[in-house]
């Protein structure tokens, strides 16, 4: 486990969050992540994240499906066991379109979902550190990683000046581990703000 120190600032309005992201980045702080309860469009660009290439992976999985289906069916019907079905040609490409299509979709979808889970490290029994319980409810939780040079007090004050409603410092594990939420996460309390 590699424990790191983070300064956490919670925002409750997109209108405040976006300028804050700009300012924090311009002030030279490195935003570790922002946890939001729903996909906030434009936030990834504001944070300077690059586009995901998940769709490219999906395309490759799809092509794999197409190739698998066509090569397998042609191997079965022309090489392995050529069957005479009503005198029709062994290599019956039009009749293979439905299965080829279905396998393309199947492989693309399954491949993409598995890839998604892998790169986001999502699976049952995975435990991660959650900086705020309301990040999945109504708060936008900005997390800034501290380096040796970071002045926590100054950073907290800065977050306060850009509009964060709740600011604290947390020492937490950065990655994931096998664990159970009922043992490691506190049960829900009343809302901390508002």
């Amino acid at each position: 486990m590699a424990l790191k120190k983070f300064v956490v600032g919670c925002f409750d309005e997109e209108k405040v969050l976006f300028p804050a992201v700009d300012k924090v980045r311009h002030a030279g702080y490195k935003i570790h992540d922002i946890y939001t309860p729903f996909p906030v469009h434009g936030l990834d660009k504001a944070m300077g994240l690059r586009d995901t290439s998940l769709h490219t992976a999906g395309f490759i999985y799809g092509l794999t499906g197409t190739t698998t289906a066509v090569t397998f069916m042609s191997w079965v019907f022309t090489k392995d066991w050529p069957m005479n079905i009503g005198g029709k040609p062994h290599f019956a490409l039009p009749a293979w379109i439905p299965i080829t299509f279905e396998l393309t979709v199947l492989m693309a979808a399954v491949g993409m979902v598995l890839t998604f889970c892998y790169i986001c490290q999502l699976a049952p029994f995975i435990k991660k550190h959650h900086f705020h319980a309301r990040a999945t409810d109504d708060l936008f939780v900005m997390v800034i990683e501290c380096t040796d040079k970071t002045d926590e007090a100054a950073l907290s004050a800065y977050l306060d000046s850009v509009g964060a409603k709740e600011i604290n410092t947390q020492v937490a594990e950065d990655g994931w581990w096998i664990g159970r939420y009922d043992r490691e996460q506190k049960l829900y309390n009343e809302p901390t703000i508002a």
Partner: protein
Amino acid sequence: MSLIKYESQVREPLVDGHKTYHDVTEDICHTIEAKPTRLWYIGFYISVALLMFGVFSVYREVTYGIGQWNLGRTIGWGWDITNFVWWVGIGHAGTLISAILLLFRQRWRTGVNRAAEAMTIFAVICAGQFPIFHMGRVWMAFFTLPYPNTRGPLWPNFNSPLMWDVFAISTYFTVSLLFWYAGLLPDMATIRDRAKTKFRKMMYGVAAFGWTGSTKHWQRHESLSLVLAGLSTPLVLSVHTIVSFDFATSIIPGWHTTIFPPYFVAGAIFSGFAMVQTLMLVMRKVMGLEQYITLSHIEVMNKVIVLTGSIVGCAYLTELFMAWYSMVPYEQDHFFKYRIAGPYGWSYWLMMTCNVISPQLFWFRKLRRNITFTFVMSIVVNIGMWFERFVIIVTSIYRDYLPSSWSLYYRPSIWEIGFYLGTFGLFFTCFFLFAKYFPVIAIAEIKHVLKTSGESYKGEMTGIERMTDEQLYADAHHHDDDHHAADVKVAHN
């Protein structure tokens, strides 16, 4: 302000009332966190009872053979395949709502997509039972799978529409399930993070896969949803097309028709939306979700019903015209003597009334927005669509080319009916469990559209409407969101 996408004030709000993000969470999660009501238990136990009857009916069929059903050599496909097509058809609305309407940017889908997708998955599970048990020797069902076996290996016939069906239905089920569950992850995390009991924390902790809501994860999630929607769109059309190939590729009058694929797809969407209406109208009332599934949601779905109902009506008339125009005596006899008239004539006219004539009443706005009328119509349409499949299957085969093999009047046996009732039990058992333990409305998606389409936020659009082009452009570019800038400009012009 311009961080929020512009949405015309002319459009009706999708979320009524003054809501904050937290209110949305509360409204949708409270039924999960409360004890089930008595009504829920009653419904659940009735469903389980029906399911048990279904299991017993299937036990009879498996033990004593297909002879338990009143099928014969002439009518080889009766209630079972009718029910199969009916359930698969119902299973089309969910993916249509979640995939096609996502690509068309129809934001009203957010209110109903979660429950509709769940309905899709359960309906496909029900549908799958029929062809599997219709095999008779169900323990050999795995013969349909192409795996290296000890019989040669002998491969299934990939040129057969029935084989295509195996691939289509199983792919459809898998992809719908993945799409549905990927969308559920963030909402499961929402329930997990507000759990007040250890057990709930553990269960939803496992179910949420450790979702945190990281921006990068959301970005990938959005990309995943979009691509899965793009994949599901042709998939949903292909599934019922392939189901229609089961009929259309045979040379039986009444089945051998090129119009079948579009006709079946339209019918599937038609019946699927009717089932969505039936379930949503009850659900919004019982669970108090009137502010999320609003009258305008109901109205747009009724518009889809009247459109697809009319397409189906056109298809029925085209079939009759083509039979007459073809000059083929078998076709003509089949349609004009044995289908619209004859011993099963009543089922044809029942289908016509339920599917073509009665939905036309939805041209009236007042009726489209009338909840009682919509509920009644949704059931009428589902009855009509069941009879459509019955008409297509039974009336096409009960009198074939050879008069000596014409069948007697076909009546289902109690075990055939029991199997059908059993799938109702299965469907509603699943749906009741879903309604109790899953967020029935996509929480994150509602939050995403809340500030553009929520009733109390719509007034803020006036500010955008009053801005000049230059202001809009400057405002949008200030926030470094090009996509958004284009949107606002188009909307304004």
